[in-house]
């Protein structure tokens, strides 16, 4: 019970801070939308091509900018605050869980809004049932990306080039999430079954959750 009390308290305060700081929805999201608009302009895509690439562009930008959500300033603690958490008896796994909870909610909201904007701007070619698959895979990618970002943020905490280094760590490790998510929609088109891809995403999320909880204590000691 103490574990969940601490995790939920950390998540609650994280979301409160984010609501006031507005980094995700007031800065990262608009920046992402601009990037969404830059793509077709930079590539001089015809309308038909825009529809064809819409979902792919969503995943690409969602992952790249989603990293900024996972690594947002409001999710990082000063050394003094971490010391107080340790002295208060906050379990490292509870910290990781709380951060992942709040980050997951923010990431889902962010990716969900990006998906909506992409749908409006790109009018993508999505097969029957594809939107349902997109929503499910968006949620699963949001969870996995948050877990990766939380881990990478902890591993790079206190370093001068933290944001760039953490992004370098997250980006390649996040690609399997992109592959799983994009293949789930492709599988609908090919009529080859989406279940393996959804299960792959779920397995990836679970593996990262286990890794995060198992490595939470060494991560705390790694300052």
């Amino acid at each position, binding site marked *: 019970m103490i574990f969940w009390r601490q995790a939920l308290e950390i998540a609650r305060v994280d979301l409160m801070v984010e609501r006031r700081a507005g980094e995700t929805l007031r800065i990262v999201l608009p920046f992402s939308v601009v990037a969404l608009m830059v793509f077709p302009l930079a590539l001089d895509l015809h309308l038909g091509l825009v529809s064809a690439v819409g979902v792919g562009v969503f995943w690409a930008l969602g992952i790249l900018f989603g990293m900024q959500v996972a690594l947002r300033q409001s999710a990082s603690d000063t050394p003094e605050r971490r010391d107080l958490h340790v002295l208060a008896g906050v379990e490292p796994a509870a910290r990781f869980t709380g951060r992942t909870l709040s980050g997951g909610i923010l990431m889902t909201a962010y990716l969900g809004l990006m998906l909506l904007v992409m749908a409006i701007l790109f009018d993508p070619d999505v097969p029957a049932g594809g939107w349902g698959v997109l929503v499910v895979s968006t949620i699963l990618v949001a969870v996995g990306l948050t877990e990766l970002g939380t881990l990478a943020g902890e591993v790079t905490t206190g370093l001068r080039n933290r944001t760039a280094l953490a992004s370098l*760590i997250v980006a*390649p490790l996040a*690609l*399997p999430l992109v592959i799983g998510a994009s293949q789930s929609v492709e599988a609908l088109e090919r009529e080859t079954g989406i279940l393996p891809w959804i299960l792959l995403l779920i397995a990836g999320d679970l*593996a990262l959750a286990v*890794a995060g909880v198992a490595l939470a204590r060494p991560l705390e000691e790694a300052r």
Partner: protein
Amino acid sequence: MTRVRVLMSLAAVAVLIGLWFALTAPPDALQGEYARLLGIHPPSMWLAFLAFGVTALGSIMWLIKKTDRWDQLASASAEIGVIFTAIGLFTGMVWGQAVWGTPWDWQDPRLMSTAVMFFVYLAYIALRNAIEDPTVRARRSAILGAIAVVQVPLVYFSVNLFRTLHQTQSIRPDGSTMPDEMLTAMLVNLVAFTILFVALLAARLDVAKVEAEARPAAPLAGDAVRPPRLSEVEDV
């Protein structure tokens, strides 16, 4: 040092033998002379997987034992793994250009995930370079090393999961699809590259040991600060 010299000599002989096998195997009916790259490309990739596996092992053992040697093993193996991955990617691209007509296939998930593995371990090395404190460096890179190994089975099994131009595994439980001479060349090179990996790892570990011993005895931090010369303040 003697041990390293012996291993390096063995590795040099083994690589030369492997090269001989690769160069003397008959050209493939379809791939022509470029089939000889199969003597380098698959062994390089197998050893990249091995190297990153050793990094993961070293990382996990450091987290358990907290001894420097495990950290040195993990780090040395990652550096060698990055080199083997680069060799594997390069030779794969040369082969692909000749046989597929393109050096890179964006739709080939195994190519992509191999490149991903390459960047993951570049990030591992970048992380190590960014941290000065040896204990913090060892711990954080151990954590990343333990997580990053997930990439290795993903690369290997992706060829079975996705539609791809890339060949499926050449050696399967039900036998091989390769001609005998080329298979022999590949296996000989696999052994040669393994010896080379062990030799490089031993050499790199020796260098790490020398670097650690050469570090000066930890000076007292506070001794670097001297009392100010107050009487000379106005003369500045």
